[in-house]
């Protein structure tokens, strides 16, 4: 279990996260939705321990970051490192011994080519595969479906379901509601750095309608006024 208690984050005077509280249980998948700039990525970076913050995050795993796989929305790659070496680098960082990496290449990536030459979707799949092979207890996935082809989206969805069955904690964000409703147990609506709403699976449809009404109908009208 992970307890996130009143975490806040400021950049200068701007408050990006405002007293966010969440309890994340084993074997559950949590979705975070919100507009661009709502604070999703900052929240993820705080949970991962990359950003300092006010408030407290506690976990039964001790040092949470050592058991956490973070998929950044735009993963970083060195210029002259192959896909296979990238996976090896992340495994070495957690003292994980890997053998026959090619056999685990479920996305059929060209692992012996430089990762920097991969397309956006291929980079995402490589970063996703690397954190899976780290055998983490917690997964924070920032936009795991964006830029990825339909077939791989289906594979990622199935992997998230598998992680749930393996009692892992998964937190993810997506701008495509259907990907969240298919995988999540709970969805948090983040706005202006605050959790505005927590919605259980049975109410996902209502949440989607509400979000459409607020973000689509009213906003599109502005453009054509």
């Amino acid at each position, binding site marked *: 279990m992970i307890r996130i208690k009143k975490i806040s984050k400021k950049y200068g005077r701007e408050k990006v996260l405002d007293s966010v509280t969440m309890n994340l249980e084993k074997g559950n998948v949590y979705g975070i939705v919100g507009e661009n700039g709502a604070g999703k990525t900052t929240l993820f970076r705080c949970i991962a*321990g990359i950003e300092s913050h006010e408030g407290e995050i506690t976990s039964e795993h001790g040092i949470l970051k*050592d058991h956490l796989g973070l998929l950044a929305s735009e*993963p970083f790659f060195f210029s*002259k490192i*192959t896909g*296979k070496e990238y996976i*090896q680098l992340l495994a070495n960082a*957690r003292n994980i011994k890997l053998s026959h990496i090619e056999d685990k290449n479920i996305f059929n990536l060209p692992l012996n*080519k430089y990762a920097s030459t991969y397309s956006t979707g291929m980079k995402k799949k490589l970063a996703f595969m690397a954190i899976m092979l780290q055998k983490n207890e917690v997964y924070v996935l920032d936009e795991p479906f964006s830029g990825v082809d339909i077939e791989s989206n289906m594979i990622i969805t199935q992997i998230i379901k598998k992680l749930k069955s393996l009692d892992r904690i998964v937190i993810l964000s997506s701008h495509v509601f259907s990907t969240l409703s298919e995988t999540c147990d709970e969805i948090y609506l983040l706005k202006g750095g605050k959790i505005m709403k927590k919605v259980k699976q049975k109410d996902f449809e209502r949440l989607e309608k509400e979000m459409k009404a607020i973000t689509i109908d009213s906003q599109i009208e502005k453009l054509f006024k």
Partner: protein
Amino acid sequence: MQEYFVLQIKMLNRKIIAFGIPLLLAYLLFPVIFFFLSNYLFSKTTYAIYFYGLASLGFTSTLSELKKNDFLRSIFNKTNYYKVRAAENLASTLPFLVFMLYKGYFPFAIILLLLSMLLIFSNFLNISNFKIPSPFSKRPFEFTIGFRKTYYLFAIAYFLAYMATSVGNFNLGIFSMILIGLICASYYLKPENEYIVWNSSATPREFLMEKMKICFTYFTLLSLPILIILGTYFYKSVDVLLLFFILINVYLATVILAKYASYPSEIDLPKGILVIMSLIFPPFLLGVIPFLYSKAINSLSLLLK
């Protein structure tokens, strides 16, 4: 088009300021350093003009990077794109051209100018995409990437070691090992993305120790041919050889500590000066190493627990 160059100058100025050098000083100092280095090269060898021309073309060819030029193509029309590239290439070649003219190498200057203009039609991504095998793939990343960028320099170092034995010049042999050390040190000059450091489950101390262990191991592997050749041919000077080998390892550790002492920024000027001072006066290391170590632990403790 003008805005593009104004932006380039702004970016350069920001880099100079971030490095800790006042702008005025930098613009006064760089031409002076360039002039003295050029003069030094021409005073040392009769082939200087060829090295100089190659160095200039090498520098200009960095502007032929495909992604950068794709971006330029996307924002400028064809005519303006070639104008920008010609102006960029001319600016990067100009210091070399001026010095060549000052030395009276007029035909060479004209050839260099023509070649640099020809480079505006080149883009180099295909070459850099070719995967170069690296013997350091098991422990990415510094040596894996560094080797791919600098493999040809090792050939030069080994050739110098061979030359040292041919002409019986022990100092040249030592220089070849120092060259390997400098190449390895260059792998630690740029800070990596914080995600890479954050991923490690090591404590800051363990992290630094692991970095140094990898560096020592791979530097030893790369220097081994030189150690064997020089140790065999100059066996009476084995003690001096080993002393230099140990000293280079200590300096490599200092560079690693300086890198992480400044992390996540690049090594700043004060820390750079500390490293240079300890190169000039090695006993400084006794103070510099503990200082940089404690700074590095502090910097890393933000990401590592």
